[in-house]
């Protein structure tokens, strides 16, 4: 705290080597330039993620090169690849093990929407089950796109961040994502062409008649 000299008319004289800032801005500046990614790489996006961290694209330029394989040392989860329903509880556990403040990048079409894998086993976008800050389009995205997402995330942290993490109290502001409406269509088979199916249908009808 600078001492207010007498007779200065309320103005504070600061030495030349002192810079005044908001505490939030200072915390954001520290946080955005030392993102430690947690590589949750499950598919080909993981290869691009590795390329992003390697020498040519050099994520160290943005202070985010320290990939750690323990969630307890990370504050940026990069989900790179499709997540199947057997993997989702693992993903959620790892996300919960990460320290606050933490952010999540959903890298590529599969992590964001399920991509081409619209099947029974693949989660149709991780943002249905964990919070996501940045989405990267692409199949897989180029390293430049991932770098752009990290730069954008840095901007977001600088703009919205607070030292106490108030920006994460989002439940009031966020709309809950609606679950997909599942197709529960019965088997649409042309029974007239298929003796096996005719037999099964007849057996089912008999069973129903017996029960009645």
């Amino acid at each position, binding site marked *: 705290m600078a001492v207010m000299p007498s007779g200065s008319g309320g103005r504070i004289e600061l030495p030349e080597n002192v810079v005044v800032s908001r505490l939030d801005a200072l915390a954001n500046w520290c946080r955005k330039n030392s993102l430690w990614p947690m590589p949750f790489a499950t598919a080909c996006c993981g290869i691009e993620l590795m390329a992003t961290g390697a020498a040519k694209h050099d994520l160290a330029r943005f202070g985010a090169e320290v990939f750690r394989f323990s969630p307890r040392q990370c504050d940026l989860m990069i989900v790179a690849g499709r997540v199947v*329903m057997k993997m989702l509880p693992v993903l959620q556990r790892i*996300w919960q093990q990460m320290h606050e403040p933490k952010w999540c990048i959903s890298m590529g079409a599969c992590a964001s929407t399920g991509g081409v894998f619209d099947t029974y086993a693949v989660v149709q976008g991780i943002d249905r089950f964990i919070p996501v800050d940045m989405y990267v389009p692409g199949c897989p995205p180029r390293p430049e796109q991932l770098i752009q997402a990290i730069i954008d995330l840095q901007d977001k942290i600088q703009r919205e961040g607070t030292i106490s993490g108030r920006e994460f109290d989002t*439940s009031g502001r*966020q709309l809950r994502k609606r679950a997909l409406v599942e*197709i529960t269509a019965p088997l649409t088979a042309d029974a007239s062409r298929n003796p096996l199916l005719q037999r099964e249908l007849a057996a089912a009808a008999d069973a129903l008649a017996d029960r009645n």
Partner: protein
Amino acid sequence: MRFTPPSVADVLAGLTARFGDLESSTFRGQTRVVVPVSSAFDVLAALEESGFDLLVDVTCVDYLEYPGATHRYGLVYLLASTSTNQRLTVRVFVDDPDPTVRSVVSLWRAADWLEREVWDLFGIRFTGHPNLRRLVMPEEFTAHPLRKDYPLQGRGERHNFPVITRDHS
């Protein structure tokens, strides 16, 4: 010297002598024999004894809506002999309800996970299997997703998870 794969005709002849007439066919040097489910284990045991020491694969086909199919499920056992290089495909057909076949884990240890996978994805029960649990799907899964009457996008299992928001993470 050119390598000529040994024929399995003599093996088939031995099977026919012991188990009666079995439907078989050959395509591009690959022989296939169809075995009724009642004698499937005995035939496979005889084949194991006669030198087919390697179980390459156990898998299944669902023939629902397949033109001309007479059975619902067709099991496929791919056998090989590491000493004679012979290969043989054994087909066993089973039907709803309760498609069941005797486990061959006692003949080939390799059958353990293969049969678990077939149980998981097709719902074929293997009696006598030491540990018939799901292999690839989560344990709480109830359906058998490679059956043709299971919808491709599932029955909502992939959405059945707790949602973690910022507030409780």
